[in-house]
C-alpha cells in the first residue's frame, strides 16, 4: 500500500503513540502515586493558578491524590480495557460472522437474530444492571463490554463475508476440492481483515467512552483505580470549585477518542479493497509469443486489459 507522507494521519498517530507510551511507561512518567494521597494536600489547583504548586502540575483531588499521575495511570486502564474487550468481542464476533455469512440458511438466520437482539439492547442500562448484579471489577467490566460489542463485529463481518463469497475464487476453491474450513480461513478471512481493522479501531473510541460512562455511574472499574470515568464522577461535586479534577481526565478521554476515530477513518479510506494496485507489471510474457524488440514500453498499462 503506497502512501504519500503528507497523507499520513500525523495528528492522530502522534496522540495514539503518546497514549501507548504513557500507558507503558506510566510508573516512570507519573510524579506521584495515583492511589495514595496526602489528605493535607487536597484540592490544590493546577500549577500556574493561585495556590498551585510545581509538585502537582494539574492539581490534586479531594483525597490529595495528584491529578496528573492519575490521568497518566488512567491511560493504562482505558487502553487495557479497550484492547481486551475488543480482542474478546472481535474474535468471537468475527468467528460468528464468518460462519454465519458463509453457511447462510438456518445458521445464518439464528445467529443474526441473536446479534440483532444484542444490538437492540439498551447498552448502558444492561451494562449497569449486569455489573451491579455481579459487582464492579476489572474483569467484569471487560466481559460486559465484550458481551455488548460482539454483535457489531458479527454483523459487519457477516456482510463482508457475503461479499467475498460472491467472488469467483471462492467457487473455484470448492471446485478445487477444498473444505469449508480452508475456504473460510484462507480465502474469506484474509479478505475481511481490512474491514476488521477498521471496525476495531472505530470501536476503541466507543469502548473507552463506555467504560468511562460505566465508571462514572459507579459500575465500572472500582475505586481507587484511576479510571478516567471515575475521576470525572468524583469531580462532579466540585465542578464549580475544583473543576480540574473533572476537566483533565475528560480532556484525556476526548483526545484519545478523537485520535482513535481519526485513525479509524484514515484506515477505512486507505484499506478500501477497491483500490487496485497496478504497480510494476511482471515481465511475464514468454518466448512463445511473437518476439518484441527491447524498445517496448515498460511499466504498467493501467486497466488496459479490462473487459
Amino acid at each position, binding site marked *: 500500500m503506497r502512501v504519500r507522507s503528507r497523507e499520513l494521519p500525523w495528528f492522530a498517530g502522534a496522540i495514539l503513540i503518546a497514549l501507548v507510551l504513557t500507558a507503558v511507561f506510566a510508573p516512570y512518567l507519573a510524579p506521584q502515586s495515583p492511589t495514595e494521597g496526602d489528605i493535607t494536600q487536597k484540592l490544590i489547583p493546577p500549577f500556574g493558578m493561585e495556590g498551585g504548586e510545581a509538585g502537582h502540575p494539574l492539581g490534586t483531588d479531594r483525597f490529595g491524590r495528584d491529578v496528573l499521575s492519575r490521568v497518566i495511570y488512567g491511560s493504562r486502564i482505558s487502553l487495557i480495557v479497550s484492547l481486551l474487550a475488543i480482542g474478546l468481542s472481535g474474535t468471537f464476533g468475527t468467528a460468528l460472522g464468518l460462519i454465519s455469512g458463509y453457511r447462510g440458511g438456518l445458521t445464518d438466520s439464528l445467529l443474526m437474530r441473536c446479534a440483532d437482539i444484542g444490538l437492540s439492547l439498551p447498552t448502558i442500562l444492561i451494562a449497569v444492571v449486569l455489573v451491579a448484579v455481579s459487582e464492579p471489577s476489572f474483569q467484569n467490566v471487560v466481559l460486559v463490554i465484550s458481551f455488548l460489542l460482539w454483535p457489531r463485529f458479527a454483523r459487519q463481518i457477516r456482510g463482508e463475508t457475503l461479499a467475498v463469497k460472491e467472488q469467483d475464487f471462492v467457487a473455484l476453491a470448492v471446485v478445487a476440492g477444498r473444505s469449508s474450513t480452508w475456504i473460510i480461513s484462507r480465502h474469506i478471512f484474509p479478505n475481511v481483515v481490512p474491514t476488521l481493522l477498521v471496525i476495531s479501531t472505530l470501536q476503541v473510541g466507543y469502548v473507552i467512552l463506555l467504560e468511562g460512562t460505566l465508571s462514572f455511574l459507579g459500575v465500572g472499574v472500582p475505586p481507587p483505580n484511576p479510571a478516567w470515568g471515575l475521576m470525572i464522577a468524583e469531580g462532579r461535586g466540585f465542578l464549580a470549585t475544583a473543576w480540574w479534577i473533572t476537566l483533565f481526565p475528560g480532556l484525556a478521554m476526548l483526545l484519545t477518542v478523537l485520535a482513535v476515530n481519526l485513525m479509524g477513518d484514515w484506515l477505512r479510506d486507505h484499506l478500501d479493497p477497491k483500490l487496485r494496485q497496478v504497480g510494476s507489471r511482471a515481465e511475464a510474457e514468454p518466448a512463445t509469443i511473437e518476439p*518484441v524488440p527491447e524498445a517496448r*514500453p515498460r511499466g504498467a498499462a493501467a486497466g488496459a486489459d*479490462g473487459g
Partner: protein
Amino acid sequence: MATPPLLVVEDLKTHFFTRRGVTKAVDGVSFTLHAGETMALVGESGCGKSVTCLSLVRLVPEPAGRIVAGRVLLEGEDLLTKSPGEMRRVRGKKIAMVLQDPMTSLNPALTIGTQVSEVVRLHQKLRGAALRERVLSALRRLRISAADRRLVQYPHQFSGGMRQRVSSAIGLSCEPRLLIADEPTTSLDVTIQAQYLELLKEVQAAAGVAIILVTHDFGIVAAIADRVAVMYAGRIVEMGTTLEVFNNPSHPYTRSLLRCLPDAGLGRQKLVEIGGQPPDLSRLPAGCPFAPRCPERQAICLEQSPPTVSVGNGHLAECWATKPVSSPGSP
C-alpha cells in the same frame, strides 16, 4: 457531398494530469461527420474512444482531465469556447448521449415518464398535454409498446434491452442533431442487440440524426456504420468508409485486429495473435504508439510519429508503411 459537415473535430487533445504523470488519453483526434451519417469509433479499452466522446460534450472529469488543444465545431460553432451555460443548452438539445449500462443510466427512484419529461421540459419548454404527447411519441419511436401504460413504471420493471431503449428515447426526445452512443449494446443479449441496432437505423433514417457509435466490436461496425475510425493509444490510426476499411485495411493494427477476431461465419480459421500489451498512456514511446507490437515495424516507426497517408476516397491511415494512393479528383 456539398452540404457542410455537421461536426468537425480538429486535432482534439485531452490529457489527464495525475501524480503519476500525464496520461494522453486523446492525442490529436480529427474527423468530420455529416448529418444522417453513422460513424463508428472502434478500439480496445484504453484507446481513448470514450474520452473523445466526453470531450465532445465537455464532460471530461475535472480537475484531473482537461481538453488541452483542438476545436470541436458543431454546425460551425466551436463548442470548446462556449460558456458552461451555453454548453448546457447544447447538451440534450443538439447532442445527446446513450451510455453502456442501462442499469445506471436511469434513476431507479423515478418513473420513466418523469425522466423523459424532464429532458423535454428543459429543452422544449412544453407543458401539460403537449409535453405528454411528446414523451409518448419519443417512447413510441423506440417501439416501446403500450407507452401510455409504461409512463408510470419504474426502470426495474423493464428488461435490459427495454431500458436501453428508454435511455435512447430520452436522448432522442429533443431531436438532437448528433447522438453519441458509447457501447450501447455491450451489456445486451445478442438477439436484443440486433433489435436495438435495427431500431437505431430506423430512427436515424426518419430523423436524420448523425450517430457516433463507440464500440470494440467490429461486427457492429460492419452491420451499421457508414464510416469507421480505428483508435489506438489516443489517436485515430485509420479512418474511412466501412467498406473501404474492411476491404482494404491500411494500418497494421486494423489488419491485426481483423485477423485475430473469431468470426462465427468462417469457422476455425486460425486466429493470428497480436503480441504484447496495450501501451501505458502516461509513458508513450516516441514514434508510432503501435510500433512495439507491430509485425511490420521499421526503424523509423520507433523514432518518428507517422504521417497521415491518404489511400484514396477519404480513406486515411497513420503509418509509415502505408503507401499513399491518390484517387482521381480527390485532394
